């Protein structure tokens, strides 16, 4: 993930930036990570690792989301 996109994803997870994907699983994952961060049960690095794994697993779908997030 490019640095600029990574920063935006971190902002999304902190709730400072709003992005809704057309991919239900991605929205569920963002929501889950936001909830865990708010509860303090995980740190940002752990969340970003999970986001990376998800996006790497589904490159066809991730390409659209990463382009949309970059454009935010």
């Amino acid at each position: 993930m490019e640095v600029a996109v990574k920063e935006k994803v971190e902002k999304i997870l902190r709730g400072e930036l709003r992005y809704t994907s057309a991919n239900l699983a991605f929205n569920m994952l963002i929501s889950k990570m936001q909830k865990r961060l708010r509860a303090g049960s995980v740190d940002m690095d752990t969340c970003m690792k999970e986001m990376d794994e998800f996006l790497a697993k589904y490159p066809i779908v991730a390409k659209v989301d990463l382009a949309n997030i970059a454009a935010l």
Partner: protein
Amino acid sequence: MLVKLDEAVRLINEGKILHIAADDSLLRQLPKGKWIGGTTPYFISEEGGLMTKERLFVNEIDYAEEIRVESYGKYNIFQIVEECYDNGLTMLIMPYGSLVATKYAKEAPEVEELLMHPTVGWISGFDLTTNGTASVYDGTRGVSYTDKAVAMYIKLPEGKSAMINMINIFSDDKTDPVIRFYDNDLSVTKCTVNGQEVTFSEYIKKTGIDTKMPLVADYNGSYINTSIKDVADGEVSFYAPVFRNIEYRFAVNVDDYAARFREKINEAGARNPVLSCNCILNYQFGNLSGQKIPPYTGPVTFGEVAYQLINQTLVYCEILEEEPK
């Protein structure tokens, strides 16, 4: 597509890989083969919504590289995240009212790795005018269950991915009161409304809320519904569980259910869903009998699985293909 029994038998005997939904009286007549199934007599077909015990709804799974079928009880249902194909799709059917469905409903959202494995499916049901029993079928072994889930693991060829999505006509009004629950549960007595503890059934009665409208939770812009099953004796029961630490609001009232449904379907723009299932509550409240909603044909179900159990929603799955380089 809806087919007669002899056509379904022919497809099975030809070795086709199939997902089948039908009344139990038909499913029990099918031969062994590469299929899984669940009971329901309600469908959205190419001809429109209908109830029939004369025909079966069949999806051919012609995009699979290979498949495996397994069944699970409440103690091992979450093995699905370990036993699925790395690049695949898991199709899951669970009987309504079974312990395995309850376990899945309550715990799936917290299962690690679940979102990494596309999982789509439904809760099997029965004719609502009878005291029927919901069943699922593992056609590969020729067995049916009322207490187990059946999963078909579908391996997808390289360059293809499964994408699961939903059509939900409901959303919330962020100025409405926030409702929170104390636990992950299928029935509750107490909750908090804007931080104040209330008896939920009394709150519903006092505010005159139309319980055809589900509770909705905003999962980063994807709204997940929890529909109310009953309000009685100080207790409110649900078709899918509510979860602690999730903010709920009652859905904004929908005046013309069917029109709103069509509007959302047009917005979704799915081209070729390989599986879709629509909730029995949409069928009933939206008067979908006789209504066509192409391209979303499939069983009408007692709950939908889009990773976790949801309801009052249309869930569908598409197979996406990587663009040639």
